[in-house]
């Protein structure tokens, strides 16, 4: 079947088998930031935005995304750029494999809830597994990022 998806702002029209997942589809169209880390819909590494909501691309069919709009890290360079430096500054990650899914879902959190509490951060990101770290560094990075954003907002509003 032919599937039409707006992928990172560009209309992609392509053939897809009935059981092609959105994960396979976005990778076939050059979005290699999206990776697959499990077979049980559990790790969050494959996170993309489907119609602005973070979803597990490994678990949804390309056919269901037909007519929809999909965003991957490739389409969010600017939004992600500043944030990832705060994570890097903490030396939070070791292998870095979990990073793309983690960044995508963190951006989804900031869009939905620009001023989350620590509890809200932990809850929103609990579906992003990291096998190297203990999540503490990432959490510090997020808090620092939010703090710096708040300071900028305050400067702008004064």
């Amino acid at each position, binding site marked *: 079947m032919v599937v039409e998806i707006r992928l990172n702002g560009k209309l992609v029209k392509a053939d897809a088998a009935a059981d092609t997942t959105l994960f396979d589809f976005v990778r076939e169209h050059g979005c290699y930031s999206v990776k697959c880390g499990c*077979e049980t*819909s*559990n790790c969050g590494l494959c996170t993309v935005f489907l119609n602005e909501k973070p*979803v597990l691309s490994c678990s949804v069919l390309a*056919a269901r995304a037909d007519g929809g709009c999909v965003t991957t890290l490739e389409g969010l360079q600017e939004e992600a750029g500043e944030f990832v430096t705060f994570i890097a500054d903490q030396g939070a990650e070791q292998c870095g494999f979990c990073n793309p899914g983690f960044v995508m879902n963190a951006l989804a959190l900031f869009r939905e809830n620009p001023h989350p509490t620590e509890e809200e951060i932990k809850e929103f990101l609990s579906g992003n597994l990291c096998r190297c770290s203990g999540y503490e560094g990432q959490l510090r990075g997020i808090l620092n990022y939010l703090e710096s954003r708040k300071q900028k907002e305050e400067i702008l509003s004064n």
Partner: protein
Amino acid sequence: MLTIQNYKKAESLAEAYELNQKKSNRILGGMMWMRLGNARINTAIDLSGLGLDTIEETEEEFRIGCMVTLRQLETHPGFVTYTGGCAKEALRHIVGVQFRNLATVGGSIYGRYGFSDVLTLLLGLDSYVELFKGGVVSLLDYADRDYDRDVLIRVIVKKKPVSMFYEAVRVTETDLPVLTCSAVRFAEDDAFTVCIGARPGRAILVEKQGNRFTSGASQETILEFARAARESVPTKSNLRASAEYRSHLVEVLVKRALTKVFLVTSDR
């Protein structure tokens, strides 16, 4: 691995029902559970074009379409308020936000999973299931039935004033629960339901609907009820917990639940 030959976005419920009568065809909910199996599906039936992805709130009831995601349910202000926050508490531990943006209420209730927070949340409320052929049946009846090939259109929850409790025990955050417990106290006649799930086994009500403390709710009568529940609720062992531990949790959670809805809740 799950394989699918054809994909069909149903244009009507009648069409979905017709297609679903064939054994090799399957309705897709969020596909989260289904994809873990090895089903070889001839035609996957997608209900996502039928407008069943909304929660309608009227004076009398919530009408929750089968394609409503768990995330929609946990963030619906009306439903969260109605359940005193229990909708959020029950669902927020299920895997992750990205997962709950896909998993559906229809798939969760059709599946009647033996670990289901979703079923435990809804079973003790005045809930119904609307089926394409079978009409409206109480969720309690539905939860007891074998799997059939009807289409679950929506879940209906009547807005009787309630106070509610929900708690699930997990070994690790986002893992399947070891035991789930909800309690609902109906304001109009003081009847209550207590529901236990993840025994493991489909969620059940302790005793039946319409439990009442004839001599009033007190620490003693609640403890008595909780001890009886420990004896009467069947539990089993699996890799997450032993039957004995689960039965212990039954007593603890039932006590906590009834204390909350009878002695702590300050709405009367």
